[in-house]
């Protein structure tokens, strides 16, 4: 047998041999080689340390309610009754109806608001006239204090 470490052939045999998983025929071959090869002997020794260390690592136990939680999720994942199966295809139709209703509702206030601009247009001259009046009044009020001030200055 060629040295697995030097030739990099059948290196996995050393791993399996260290784990005691190699078939008998190969195990005998590896054993003979390991007895004569210090490098492979060291490999096997170190690999066994790793193997034993990993073997001490226990995983924690599962929660007692693992199955119950899983079956709840399974139940949620599938339609629970024939009624659900019947209604499921109707969901797109219902969504379409909702869209139509929403369209009608949205369109109604727009139609109601449409006359508003025309009313606004008819009111506009009056508003302008009123604004002009207000401005005139403000101008007059602004002039009065300054005239008063002008009369009092010489004193």
């Amino acid at each position, binding site marked *: 047998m060629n040295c697995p470490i030097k030739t990099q052939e059948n290196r996995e045999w050393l791993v399996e041999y260290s784990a005691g998983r190699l078939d008998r025929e190969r195990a005998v071959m590896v054993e003979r080689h390991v007895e004569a090869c210090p490098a492979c002997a060291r490999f096997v020794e170190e690999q066994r340390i790793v193997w034993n260390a*990993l073997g001490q*690592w226990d*995983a924690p136990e599962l929660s007692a309610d693992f199955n119950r939680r899983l079956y709840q999720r399974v139940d949620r994942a599938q339609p629970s009754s024939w009624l659900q199966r019947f209604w499921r295809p109707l969901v797109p139709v219902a969504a379409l109806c909702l869209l139509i209703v929403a369209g009608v509702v949205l369109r109604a206030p727009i139609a109601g608001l449409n006359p508003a601009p025309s009313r606004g247009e008819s009111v506009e001259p009056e508003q302008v006239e009123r604004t002009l009046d207000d401005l005139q009044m403000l101008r007059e009020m602004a002039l009065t204090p300054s005239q008063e001030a002008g009369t009092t200055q010489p004193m």
Partner: protein
Amino acid sequence: MPQWVNEDMGAGSLALDCDAELMLRVRDGDGASFALLLDKYRVSVAHFLYRMVQDQPVAEELAQEVFLRVYKSRESYEPTAKFTTWLYRIATHLALNWLRDEKNDRAQERLDEVAGDAPVREVADRTPSVEHQMVRQVKLDEVRKAVAALPDKQRAAVLMHKYEEMDYSQIARVLSCSESAVKSLLFRAYETLRVRLAHMA
């Protein structure tokens, strides 16, 4: 031999993959067969996931997801490989995705927290049994950290090889890579572990 037994299952498993047969019954609506598969594999799948993500609540959540996916995909199930290959492919996929998303940051933090809370630092009593327990705990922490430090795929390969006792060809099918790639993955992983755990003789 049933028609559905595929050559991919390998010579060792041609003696009817009972699990695949059970899964076919699940496909036909047999809930009892699903319960049998669940009872048979929930512990090993959960333990595999625990060692992958090293977080018990996350491992249980992922294990639930594995079996939920098995159930959900029952209608499209085809026994083209051993049932366990399919099962562990789902589990590995979920674990690798979780690890990718978490990128070990949170997992490492939790690991440190657990190590920090371990009795080894809290117990003042120095009776031999407590010391023995302390030494054991320290060793276990070292093992967990050494495994956690492996690249994700190497870790998955080592865990399937060591704890699930899968052969190279099955690991290759689970990881969707060649058998020689698995040999290389395992050799590198064990090489790293030999260096890190050499003092544990």
